[in-house]
Each structure stands twice: as structure tokens, then as C-alpha cells.
């Protein structure tokens, strides 16, 4: 005998519908259904229910598992005419014997009504904004067809979990941790585990978190004692922890059924558990024991339901439903809980782990997995560090010797509650908040609240070293350190008054090196007007060229630089770091530039420069000096020598020298001036146009690149400086001595078989 329809008990809807868009949609629906009128029933004070009979396409050989979905299914289309279409329609089964326990993708039944079909993943009201009533009806018919074919519950050998709503509070735990707990305990023959839960907040129904598994006997005593100790002076605990249970079935059965009727009291809870094979009698005794011995007023119970397949989106086949018992003394009768004891259910919040964050962010599993060093947690560095951390990359030692002050907060990623705290310590604390599970952080993130010196760089082995210090001092350590292994070096900073972000990636084997990359960047300004303009602005902003420091530290309260600009640069930096580190380090170096402009409108662009490895030689007369020639320079010299053979030839180098790092960078050559003279044994370098050519370069590069030395060829040898050469060296040295910053005397000889740099 048919069980009847839910709509049989509904009254006629006694009001008129006047919204034109709803009337039009209803008219379209009637046309689609081929009917003249639609029956309107009163669903509740606000909503109208329209009974429909849907044609359902069933599989030819019968429904999945014999589920009672029929070729024609009566449903109710429920609409809120007052809030349509902001609140979209919902569809409910109208048959009282509709098998909703066997189908996934249904909402929880509420207020003694049937549960609604969950027609879309995500918010159904958002989805409806692109649809009309006819489309909802088509989708409902297709939903029923999927249900009949078993394609609602199982999706590619994955199980659709319960679709729950109407939560009262949240419970946070790591899903995998609880699955492991169940599997381990079940393997030892247990059906439940006593646990401690910690209250994080009382708001919005309460937010709790799984704290730990508690064994019986001494462990309980110890837990109780510890809880007793954690009491403020006024008697209330600092941290609220309560005992609770995780429970599961031991019958070895995988349950495919759903239960859209969630329990609201202890009696219904026991019935609910029994449907999933959970030993109810034992649970009754355990709960009473807990309530009696460890009475607290709140007991959390997590029910583990064994499913036949791994759950969609989760790495296990146990589905957890989370409940919260609110117990009064009156609820305990004869050492048992009354059936009327109130039960609420809580939403599970998956504990965020770095692995999960990595997946959500789409960051490659191969990127930044080894332990790395992150130095400099100012405005840019802190933001990049947090971007990477939120992408699941936390295996860093974070180093900064500075502490946070109020003037940092307009730009810093951390907030004022960290005032006075060392930046690296504060960041690691922030990461522990982000990933409260702890394990990944403890093994990974470390705070180094001191300056990083060369010895740290040389004595520890890192997968990568990220420098966001904007510190020339640290730059020198980075350049000169003789590091273990071959860490990937990345340096990022902001310049041009915050309008230019520069990110440098060294090439494989530290060539090109960060100082090579800077040299290449400055050299590019000869051909890129925007870079030239930047360097000229930097030059103009300083009194003396010698004081030009490219790169602004954002730590000073006098630095004018907004957080939004920082955020743009940091976003590019973080994205570039993730992309670059996902693959093997290439041979060439890379420079990313993030440029902001205000005219004609506020805009952000980025560019990218690759830099081939430099040719590196030690000075033949003084190996403490290193000469680094940009790719192609030495080839030019050889080509020039061959071209002019048998005569000597030569030219002038463009670049710069650094006495601190004892490095000369050569970025290009200027050919011998037209008034130069040469024969097989002599070369007289002329002067025609040379000064103007050099000044052009100096001007275009804001003084960063200029005349740095000279070269000539010995096509017939010797492979050393001649007496004539030495006389020139001495003359240069005497002339340079008059300068405030004397140039080193840098001379390179090229022979058919050798290239010999000399520095005096």
C-alpha cells in the first residue's frame, strides 16, 4: 500500500504571487511541463510548495542496489515568493516512503519535513542566480536519475559523505589523525576511545578542538590533575578541556546508508548509532560513567561511520559525525543518561596542515621541501614568508634580529599584538596559529632572532637561502660565503621608492651570483629606458654617487611606502619563488621585476630577464681578486684579437669594482677608439669619443656602471705583462691615487691560448 504524500497534509496557498520575475518563471515552467495550472500549497508561513511529478530516466537493469527511485517521482518545488530569487527554490521528495537513507546529496531533515535534495555543490542560492525554475526541475529529475544509477553516493569509487547543515558550533581535528586512532584502537578490539577536547571559544555554539587520546587509569588521573593545575587565581581554568569519546563500529560492515534525521537527544542518538553498527548498550554505560565520574556539563562524542569507499575529498573511508551532549545533573538517573538529554551536532573543521595548504594552493609537491633559510622579515620578507607558509611551505629557519614596533604595522604582515616581539619569533608564532597541529611546524619552522653571519651560511646546509634583508652587509656575506652544498639563492628587495620590486634567482652552482645579477640588471638600463630612469632617480635622490644604495629597507618610519605596494611586489615574489623552486635549478639566473606606475593610472606590470652564467677568473697577480665577465664579453675579445691579427688590439671595459668583495664585474666592452694605433708588438689606445661613450653609460645607469679597466691582446705572447704594460699600470695607479675612491688598476691581456686579468 502506498505510503502517501507529504503534500497531502498541506493546505492550499491562499495568497497571490505578484513578483513579475517569479510569475514569468512559473509561466515558463508551465509551458515546459505542458500544464495549464500549477497547484500551490502552503509550505510554511513564508513559502509555497508546488507538487510536481517528474519523469526519471532509470537504468535499464534496475536501480543501484534496488533503491526505490521510480520512473515517476512526486516532488515538491518550494519557493519563497517574498525573497525570490535571492533565495532560490528547493526541491523535496513528496513520497513519505522516499528512500532518502540510501541516497547521498540530501540535506538534513528539519522540523519533521522531508530532507531537501542537494542539487549543487556549493551554495544553491548562488547557483540559482544563473537559472530559472524549469532548470531546477530538470536538475531535480537528473538528480533522481543519478540516485537511481548509484551515482549520487559513489563518485568514481569515492563515497559522498553526509550533507549536513544546521550545526551548533564547530569541532576541529585532523581527519587523518582520527582515522588512525580508530584503526589502531579497532585493531586492538576497542569500540571507543576516551579523549580530551579543548574549548577554543564559546561563541556561535562553541568551538572545540581535539586535544589528545587519553588512556584509562593513570592517564585519566594525570589528565585530571593537570586540568586542576591549570586554574586561574579566580578558580576558572585557563584552558577549558573536557573529556569526550570517539566511537566506532566493530562489526566489520561498511555502511552505505545515510540518516538525514540527526538525533536531538540521547535516545535518538542511540538509535542513530545503532544504524551504523555502533554498540549502543556499551555506549550508554560509558557515557554514564563519564558523566558521573568526570562530570563537566559538556561531553563531545565523535561517531565514526565505516563507509565502503574513501570519502570524496578525504584520504580515508571513515565518516565522522560530531555531537555535543549538554548534560544537567537532572539528566543522570540511576547512573545512566536520560534519553531526553539534549544532543547537538557540530561541524567538523579540518585542522589545517601544511600538506593540505599546499594542495589547496596548488603548490607543486616538489617545491621547497628541504630545510631552507629565510632571512629578513620586514614588510616584504614577512609577507613573502607568509605567502609561502600559506602555500604549505614552512620548512624554514626564519631569521631577523629586529623586533616589531608600532611603526612597522602599516606595512608589516603581522598585527599589533606582536608588538615588541622579535620578528622571527612572532612569525613562527603566527605559523603555529595557522597550523595548530604542531607536528609539521616543530620539525620545520624555527625562529632565529639574531643576525646571520657568514659562519651560519657556511656551517649549515640549506636547500635554499632567501634574502629579503635589503642589507648590503648581508649581501656581502652572501656573496663571499663558501657554502655547503649548492643552496639555491634568492634575493628580493624593493627600490625606486617602493615602485620597483626586484627578485634575483642565482643560476646553478651560484653562477650567475646575486652580485652578477645586479650587475646585469644595471647593465640592462643602457637599453631599457624604464630601468635607466629608475637608476637616474636613485642617483638624483642622493647627494653623492658613493652614497647611492639601491634598495630601500622598509623598516624605517620615515620610509614612505604603502602596504598595498608591498603586497603587489610580495605576491609576485612569492609566485615566482614557487614556480622556480618547483623545477630543477636552471643554469641561467633570472631577474623578476615588479613595476608600479601611477600615470596615466595606477598599474602593475612585471618583466623577466634571464642572465647567462658569467666567466669567472682570478686575477693572475693577486688571486684574492676575482674578475667576473658577463657572458659574451670574452668571446668579443677573442673575436677582436683574431680580426686584428697579427696586430695587437684592445679596448675598454665597462663595469664596476667592489673592494669589499674584491670583485670586478665586467658587463661589456667599448671598442678601441678610432685614433688608436697598433702593430704586432704595440697597441696605443686612443681617446676619440671614449669619454663621451663612457659618460653615456654612466648617465644611463645612474652611475652604477662605468669605466672599470682596459684590455689588449698579445697575439704573439708573452703571457704576462710587458714592461710597457707595467709602465702604464704604474701611471694609472698614480693618477687614481688622487681620487676619493681610487679605481683599481684592472688590465686584461688576451693571448691565443689564455686570458689573464691583472688587478693592482
Amino acid at each position, binding site marked *: 500500500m502506498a505510503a502517501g504524500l507529504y503534500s497531502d497534509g498541506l493546505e492550499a496557498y491562499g495568497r497571490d504571487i505578484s513578483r513579475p520575475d517569479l510569475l514569468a518563471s512559473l509561466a515558463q515552467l508551465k509551458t515546459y511541463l505542458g500544464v495549464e495550472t500549477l497547484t500551490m500549497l502552503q509550505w510554511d508561513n513564508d513559502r509555497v510548495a508546488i507538487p510536481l511529478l517528474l519523469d526519471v*530516466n*532509470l*537504468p*535499464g*537493469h*534496475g*536501480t*543501484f542496489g534496488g533503491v526505490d527511485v521510480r*520512473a515517476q517521482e512526486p516532488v515538491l518545488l518550494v519557493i519563497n515568493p517574498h525573497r525570490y530569487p535571492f533565495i532560490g527554490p528547493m526541491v523535496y521528495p513528496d513520497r513519505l516512503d522516499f528512500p532518502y537513507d540510501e541516497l547521498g546529496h540530501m540535506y538534513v531533515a528539519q522540523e519533521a519535513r522531508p530532507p531537501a535534495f542537494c542539487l549543487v555543490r556549493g551554495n544553491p542560492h548562488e547557483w540559482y*542566480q*544563473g*537559472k*530559472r525554475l*524549469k*532548470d531546477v526541475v*530538470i*536538475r531535480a*529529475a*537528473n538528480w533522481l*536519475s*543519478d540516485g537511481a*544509477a*548509484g551515482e549520487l553516493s559513489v563518485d568514481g569509487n569515492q563515497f559522498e559523505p553526509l550533507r549536513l547543515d544546521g550545526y551548533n558550533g564547530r569541532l576541529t581535528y585532523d581527519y587523518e589523525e582520527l582515522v588512525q586512532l580508530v584503526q589502531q584502537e579497532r585493531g586492538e578490539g576497542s569500540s571507543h576511545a576516551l579523549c580530551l577536547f579543548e574549548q577554543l571559544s564559546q561563541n556561535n555554539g562553541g568551538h572545540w578542538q581535539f586535544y589528545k587520546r587519553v588512556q584509562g587509569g593513570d592517564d585519566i588521573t594525570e589528565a585530571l590533575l593537570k586540568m586542576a593545575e591549570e586554574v586561574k587565581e579566580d578558580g576558572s581554568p585557563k584552558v577549558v578541556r573536557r573529556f569526550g569519546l570517539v566511537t566506532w563500529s566493530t562489526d566489520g560492515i561498511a555502511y552505505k546508508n545515510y540518516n538525514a534525521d540527526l538525533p536531538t537527544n540521547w535516545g535518538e542518538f542511540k538509535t542513530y548509532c545503532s544504524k551504523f553498527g555502533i554498540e549502543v548498550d556499551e555506549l550508554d554505560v560509558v557515557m554514564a560513567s563519564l558523566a558521573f565520574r568526570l562530570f563537566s556539563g559538556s561531553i563531545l562524542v565523535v561517531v565514526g561511520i565505516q563507509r565502503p569507499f574513501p570519502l570524496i575529498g578525504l584520504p580515508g573511508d571513515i565518516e565522522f559525525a560530531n555531537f555535543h551532549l549538554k548534560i544537567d545533573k537532572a539528566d543522570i538517573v540511576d547512573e545512566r543518561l536520560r534519553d531526553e538529554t539534549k544532543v547537538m551536532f557540530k561541524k567538523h573543521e579540518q585542522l589545517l596542515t601544511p600538506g593540505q595548504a599546499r594542495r589547496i594552493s596548488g603548490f607543486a609537491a616538489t617545491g621547497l621541501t628541504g630545510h631552507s633559510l629565510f632571512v629578513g622579515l620586514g614588510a616584504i620578507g614577512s609577507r613573502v614568508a607568509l605567502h609561502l607558509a600559506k602555500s604549505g611551505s614552512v620548512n624554514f629557519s626564519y631569521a631577523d634580529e629586529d623586533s616589531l614596533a608600532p611603526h612597522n604595522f602599516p606595512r608589516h604582515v603581522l598585527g599589533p599584538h606582536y608588538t615588541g616581539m622579535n620578528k622571527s619569533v612572532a612569525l613562527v608564532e603566527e605559523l603555529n596559529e595557522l597550523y595548530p597541529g604542531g607536528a609539521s611546524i616543530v620539525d620545520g619552522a624555527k625562529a632565529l632572532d639574531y643576525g646571520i653571519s657568514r659562519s651560519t651560511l657556511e656551517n649549515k646546509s640549506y636547500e635554499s637561502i632567501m634574502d629579503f634583508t635589503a642589507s648590503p652587509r648581508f649581501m656581502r656575506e652572501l656573496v663571499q660565503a663558501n657554502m655547503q652544498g649548492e643552496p639555491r639563492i634568492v634575493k628580493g628587495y624593493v627600490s625606486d621608492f617602493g615602485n620597483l620590486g626586484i627578485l634575483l634567482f642565482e643560476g646553478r652552482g651560484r653562477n650567475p651570483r646575486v652580485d652578477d645579477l645586479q650587475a646585469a640588471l644595471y647593465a640592462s638600463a643602457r637599453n631599457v629606458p624604464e630601468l635607466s630612469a629608475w637608476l637616474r632617480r636613485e642617483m638624483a635622490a642622493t647627494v653623492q654617487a658613493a652614497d647611492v644604495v639601491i634598495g630601500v629597507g622598509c623598516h624605517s618610519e620615515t620610509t614612505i611606502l604603502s602596504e598595498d605596494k608591498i603586497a603587489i611586489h610580495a605576491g609576485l615574489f612569492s609566485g615566482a619563488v614557487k614556480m622556480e623552486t618547483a623545477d630543477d635549478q636552471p643554469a641561467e639566473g633570472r631577474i623578476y621585476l615588479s613595476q608600479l606606475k601611477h600615470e596615466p593610472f595606477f598599474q602593475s606590470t612585471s618583466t623577466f630577464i634571464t642572465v647567462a652564467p658569467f666567466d669567472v677568473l682570478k686575477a693572475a697577480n693577486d688571486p684574492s681578486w676575482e674578475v667576473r665577465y658577463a657572458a659574451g664579453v670574452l668571446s668579443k675579445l677573442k673575436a677582436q684579437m683574431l680580426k686584428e691579427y697579427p696586430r695587437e688590439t684592445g679596448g675598454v671595459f665597462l663595469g664596476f669594482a667592489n673592494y669589499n668583495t674584491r670583485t670586478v664585474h665586467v658587463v661589456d666592452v667599448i671598442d678601441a677608439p678610432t685614433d688608436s694605433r697598433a702593430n704586432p708588438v704595440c697597441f696605443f689606445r686612443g681617446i676619440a669619443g671614449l669619454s663621451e661613450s663612457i659618460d653615456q653609460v654612466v648617465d644611463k645607469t645612474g652611475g652604477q656602471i662605468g669605466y672599470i679597466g682596459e684590455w689588449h691582446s698579445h697575439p704573439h705572447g708573452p703571457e704576462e705583462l710587458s714592461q710597457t704594460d707595467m709602465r702604464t699600470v704604474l701611471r694609472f695607479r698614480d693618477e687614481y691615487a688622487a681620487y676619493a675612491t681610487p679605481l683599481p688598476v684592472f688590465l686584461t691581456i688576451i693571448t691565443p691560448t689564455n686570458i689573464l686579468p691583472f688587478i693592482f
Partner: protein
Amino acid sequence: MASQIKYYPVDNGDTTVISIEEGGYTTNIMVDCNIRKSSKGDKNPEQYDIHADLLKLLKRKKHNGIEGVPYIDVFMLTHGDEDHLLGFEDNFYQGDPKNYKQANKDKNEILVEVLWFSPMVMGTAGNDDERCFNKEARRRINLHCDKKDARKDAGNRIVIIGDNGHEKIDDVDDLVRFYPGDIVKRFNDRDLSSFSIFIHSPYQKELSEEDVDKNMVSLVFQARFHNSASLDGFSTLAMFGGDSNYEAWDTILKKTKKYGNDKKHHALKWDLFMAPHHCSWTYFGGDSENDEEAAEASLEELDYGRGTAKVITSCREIKDEEPNPPHYRAYEEYVDKVKKANVLQTATHDKKGKTPQPLVFEVKQLGPTLLKRAEGNAAVAGTGAVSTVNKTSSYGSGTI
């Protein structure tokens, strides 16, 4: 796309495409064609534009340096009547595939990689499309007779079903041939594990000129989608009978049982049964005018339906009136067997406005399931293919 069977609405005619999805490759098998000129574009809203749909459904490839050439893996002809071959000449390329040119592509001519041809169903051609088909079949056969290398090329391949009929091809020994009782698993040079065809007919060995009655010798076959988790190991069994009549079915049942293929290979079972000869009485008997009893074998075959088996009637809307086919009493026999809800008429089952839509069944583990309906959207924008865009529109405040 999942495997599917698509029955096109062509009034009294047959046009079906079986699409088998396996290993990332879709094999498309066309069974008969009935492409009316009037169905193209929006000339007649009561006719579904099959050609346009084929051009969307079929795969395309680069051929002779021409990009996007549409092609069908296999074209099967159940028999040569006009309503099973209409439009073949205009819509399918005939001739050496090496000569397929841009002009052919511009006319959207579909390349047929393999032709399934039964000499037994082809007598003297009675219409232009049949003449073209025969000519194309002979061209391909001649490549085999002449042992040309090109005979193995796509667009030249041919498969012979049944005996020679009037064709003199006895001594052509490298022709691919199948006979009733054979299970075919190789289609267009690909061996499929998820699909096969059991051939029931033509079983005749020889015919005289007077006996050539094409409706007696239709290609009759069972299309089989394999799935070890499904009923009998087949997720979908679809029976195609062309215009075969009650006598043919009587023989088919006898032979199938004689050789044990009903039990060994489930060769008589079906989930989808295309009512032969457009739901005419000829499937049930020889006298449609008087109230003759339906033939036993015909009724028995309908008992082999599995689960919620469905009969597809590829014909005009069935009414209790002339002309015939369709035959109303035949329709009632089908209804009697499978219930009315399971007799699906291509002319009426699904319509958009006046235009009937194809019946499409998805092949699923639990059996063939009608394709889910497509939803619409609240926001919409027309493309350049919208009919009103492609026609002049007249405006004015007075008479033009």
C-alpha cells in the same frame, strides 16, 4: 563522452549512431542514414537537422593536409531501401580518399573509413543513393581484387557480411568477411574489448533475381557493450533489424538456438529493440489488413527483453490510422510486451518546439539510460549560427 547509442528522428526511416568510448578513443558506427535535404538548416522545423548534428558528433582529422575533416569509423547498411540510405550521395564522400579535397570539406562531406557491405542485401539499385553506395562498395572491393596496397587505407576499407549474392568475390581471399553467428570485435582496424556485434543475418546462401526482396535480407545484428559487473556480462544489448520481417526472425531464432548462441552468447537478448520496418506489421506477420495473430517467433523474441527493456520505433507518430507503417496494431503488440512507457517513438518522445530530438541512451553499468536533459541558463547570447542572423530581416513603418 560515455559510450552511447543515438537514434535520430527521421519519420519512417532509420539513422543510428553507436559511439563506443574505449581507451580514450571513440569509435563511431553509423547504421543506415536518412538525411533529408529539407531537414538541413531551419527549412523545416518539424525535421531534426541530422547532418548538422553529425558534424558536431563525429571526430575530425587532418586528411590530405586538410584540417578538420569529419569522418565516421564504420558505416553499416542494413539494406538498400531509400529510407535507409537517403542522403548518402550528398553527405558522404565517395571515391579514392586521396582525392578528398578542400571543396569536399567545404561541403562537409563525411569520410567513411570502413564500409560494411552485404552483397545479399544489394540487388539492382532502386535509387540514386543506393547506386552510389553500390558503386562505392564495388570500388573498394576492386581494390582487393586488384590487390592494391591502398585497400588497407582508411576510406578504402570494406567488410563483407554474409554470402556473395550476385557479387563475384569468391576468389578474393583477403576481404574481411563475417557471417551470421560471428561475433565481431574489430572495427576500423581496432580491436575493442568493451564492444562487439553478433551477426544474425543475412543468413541466406543464394538468391534468384525474383527472390531479391531486400526486406527479407536485412542485416540483423545485436550490438553488445561488455561489462563483467553487469547483467549477463553486458551492460547494454541493442538489437537492430533493418526491415527484417517475421519470416526472417523465425529463421534467426531457430538458427540461434540450434547453434546454442542464445545461451552461450545471449545472442537473442536485448535492452533496446529497434522495431523493424518502422513499426510495421511485417515484423509480426504477412497480412497487415486483417486481424491475423502475431507470429510466435516474433513474440518470443520480444520476451528476450531484459530489465526495463525498451522498444524504439523509428517512424512517424503512431496513430490508429493510415498510412502504414507505422502500424497501430504492431505498436499495440509492443506495448503489450514492454508497457507503453517503454515504447519510445522517435517522432514524439522529446521535442523542442516542433522539432523532434534524437533518443540518446548512455551505456551504463546498470543498463542503457536515457541521457539526462540539459538545463538552460538565465543569461543567454546567440551565436552567428542563429537562424535569424542568417536571414534578411525587413523593417519599415510602411509597406516595402
